[in-house]
């Protein structure tokens, strides 16, 4: 059988970095083919080449046996290649219909577009309201737009880049049945993910990339998750050790009916959020992206002030009207989601970045920065968290995602904070660094600190949290002990089912 698409010897270099090193890949019609690899393994580069967004330095692409040049996304789309992007390629202020219409081929009339959207929606179970502006939609609905947009062009090959990372478990199930229907209809699917359970369930074949090279191809249904993970990483991945049994201390951090309108136009307002975290425990906050996590972090850290001081307390002291520095002085520490530009200034060196959040800890004397103390502290963080870097004190932006994340987590961790608030601690971080960071969070809690972890990764929350709360549309559910709440129930809360119960 002729492969639908066959890549041979694809090489792509960015300066000195070889992102793809002689990659071969075949996708057959009707096949769901997984492309696996760690962050930075070259998956995204490869699919961008396949969708015409990047040009390879070497290698050939054959489409149904015929060699083709993919000069741009329009050329790829004309052949019948569709793509669902990880970071959606949508326009927030345009309506659903406009978002879809703008991607239709030239000369394709838009008059009957709404009818066609409805027809595709009915066939694959993807309901959409064409007149809604995109910014009012949930992440799951946005993804539906991307998928409908791709399907309207009747693709023969559909590429999906980490499609389930923004979905509730139930939404993911709906997606899987859509994909099964598509594959049964003869469409080839290239499925990129690092969620290995999904791959074992859904995919017929898997190609594994490591450092830009194909290291293995296998039938994922025949492999265990651990075997797939070690193929991706190249070595065994350390398991996170749970903390030894320890008694819980008093409440160290609390939110009491915190209500906060969003400062961002398209943001989410927080509605009467209450939470108590005791010393010695980790509370995980689950939720689909964009349900108020950023706003909640801002309110907890003091980047956004609450209306009343009592709305936020640290060790019993009201701090709702105090800024981030005042909260740090009460032994709280904060790690925001975005490494570059929020947790760290990318063009400044690591030691300068230490000063950013630790200037209260002997980094400044008489109004002057003590650079020597900052350098010593940077080296201590680097040693304690095994941060790998090229130079002694490089700019933060030159570190890989995992290493910079270890650094910014370590920077707060070494203060031995009494309260730690962290948003997405391991987003886009490789498995080795992920294990290090999760272990450090568990050890910190075991030493008596109150830890709040906001994460969209349910596996992460189950791996480290003692109690789990779910945020949906700015409302926080009660925190359930992790052993007593199943994924099914969390998924329902993530989708907003909690409202019905509350009302």
């Amino acid at each position: 059988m002729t492969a639908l698409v066959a890549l041979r010897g694809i090489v792509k270099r960015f300066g000195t970095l070889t992102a793809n090193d002689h990659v071969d890949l075949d996708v057959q019609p009707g096949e769901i083919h997984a492309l696996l690899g760690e962050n930075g393994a070259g998956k995204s580069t490869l699919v961008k080449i396949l969708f015409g967004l990047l040009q390879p330095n070497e290698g050939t692409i054959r489409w149904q046996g015929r060699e083709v040049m993919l000069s741009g996304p329009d050329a790829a789309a004309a052949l019948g290649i569709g793509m669902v992007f990880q970071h959606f390629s949508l326009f927030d202020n345009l309506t659903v219909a406009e978002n879809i219409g703008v991607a239709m081929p030239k000369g394709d009339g838009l008059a009957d577009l709404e009818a066609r959207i409805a027809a595709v929606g009915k066939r694959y179970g993807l309901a959409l309201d064409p007149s809604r502006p995109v910014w009012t939609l949930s992440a799951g609905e946005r993804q539906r737009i991307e998928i409908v947009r791709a399907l309207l062009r009747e693709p023969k090959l559909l590429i999906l880049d980490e499609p389930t990372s923004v979905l509730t478990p139930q939404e993911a199930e709906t997606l899987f049945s859509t994909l099964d229907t598509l594959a049964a209809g003869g469409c080839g699917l290239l499925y990129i993910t690092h969620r290995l359970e999904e791959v074992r369930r859904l995919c017929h074949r898997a190609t594994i990339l490591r450092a830009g090279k194909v290291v293995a191809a296998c039938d994922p249904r025949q492999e265990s998750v651990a075997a797939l993970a070690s193929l991706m990483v190249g070595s065994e991945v350390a398991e996170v050790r749970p903390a030894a049994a320890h008694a819980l201390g008093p409440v160290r951090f609390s939110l009491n009916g915190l209500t906060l309108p969003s400062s961002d136009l398209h943001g989410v307002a927080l509605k009467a959020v209450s939470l108590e975290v005791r010393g010695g425990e980790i509370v995980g906050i689950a939720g689909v992206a964009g349900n108020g996590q950023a706003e909640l972090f801002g309110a907890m850290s003091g980047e956004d002030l609450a209306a009343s001081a009592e709305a936020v307390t640290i060790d019993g002291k009201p701090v709702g009207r105090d800024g981030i520095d005042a909260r740090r002085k009460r032994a709280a520490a904060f790690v925001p989601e975005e490494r570059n530009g929020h947790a760290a200034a990318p063009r400044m060196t690591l030691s300068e970045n230490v000063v950013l959040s630790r200037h209260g800890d002997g980094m400044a004397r008489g109004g002057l920065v003590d650079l020597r103390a900052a350098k010593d502290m940077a080296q201590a963080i680097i040693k304690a968290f095994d941060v790998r870097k090229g130079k002694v004190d490089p700019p933060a932006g030159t570190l890989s995602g995992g290493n910079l994340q270890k650094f910014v987590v370590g920077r707060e961790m070494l203060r031995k904070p009494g309260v730690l608030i962290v948003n997405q601690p391991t987003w886009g971080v490789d498995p080795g660094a992920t294990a290090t960071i999760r272990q450090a969070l568990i050890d910190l809690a075991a030493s008596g600190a109150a830890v709040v972890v906001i994460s969209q990764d349910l596996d992460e929350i189950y791996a480290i949290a003692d109690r789990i709360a779910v945020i949906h549309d700015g409302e926080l559910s009660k925190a359930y002990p992790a052993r007593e709440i199943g994924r099914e129930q969390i998924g329902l809360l993530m989708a907003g089912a909690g409202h019905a119960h509350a009302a």
Partner: protein
Amino acid sequence: MGVWEAILITVVTAATPLLIAAMGELVVERAGVLNLGIEGMMAVGAACGFAAAILSGSTILGILAAIAAGLVLSGLFALLVLGLATNQVASGLALTILGLGLSGLIGAGFVGTQREAIPPVYIPGLTDLPGGHVLFGENPFVYFSLALAFATLWFLGRSRAGLTLRSIGENHASAHALGLPVLKVRLAAILFGGACAGLAGAYLSLVYTPFWSPGMTAGRGWIALALVVFASWRPLRLLFGAYLFGGATVLQLHAQAASLGIPSQALSAFPYVATIVALVVMSVGRRSATAPGSLGAPFVPDR
């Protein structure tokens, strides 16, 4: 012609150059590019238009020369901000300074030269009706500017190309990922904005005054820029805003004539103060909700 009719006609006269220049800039900004060089392009358009009209004796050639001048300057701007991905604010300011200087050079030989203004339309019967001068006796530029406003409204709201342009202004990274030609569309938009600014300049030197004097644009390019924000990037609101500011200009002229005891300098500043107040009110009220998402951001595709 009654007093009110005369006042209305002067309002329209003051509003028309603002409307033309601002409508061009609106399209540029909806494509995601901020061109602060309108003032410079208007000045060069006014100088070139006047010079060409005097030298050739043809009004049409004068208008065409003004449009061409706007195209050339905006083409230079496009080369900088699209080709070299330079900072749009700095490039736009440089364009204004360059345009103002260049217009002085081009117009140097024509200072003090007078020319017949382009006559208003005269339709026998209709123009002589009561109020007919306002509706049927305006300058051809006025009818063109109104047509331009409604054409822009249709283009942005209804046409496929307009949808493409808005998408690119909203999020150029997404647009590129979908295979839309980001740079080509932006080039076309910038050139359109330049042509409109040049034309607005020609209106000043061929209809409004009609002569050339250095600095005759008198900040109208900046008011046009403010109008785009005031109108929150919508053509119909821009039409309304242009007439509002035209009215403010005429109002201060009449206030000066009526000698109310307010210093004339303070009255002359009135439209500019109104601009600032409008901008403050807009930004306090809605946090610039409708600004195109990629406005002012340079676009550099991956290779």
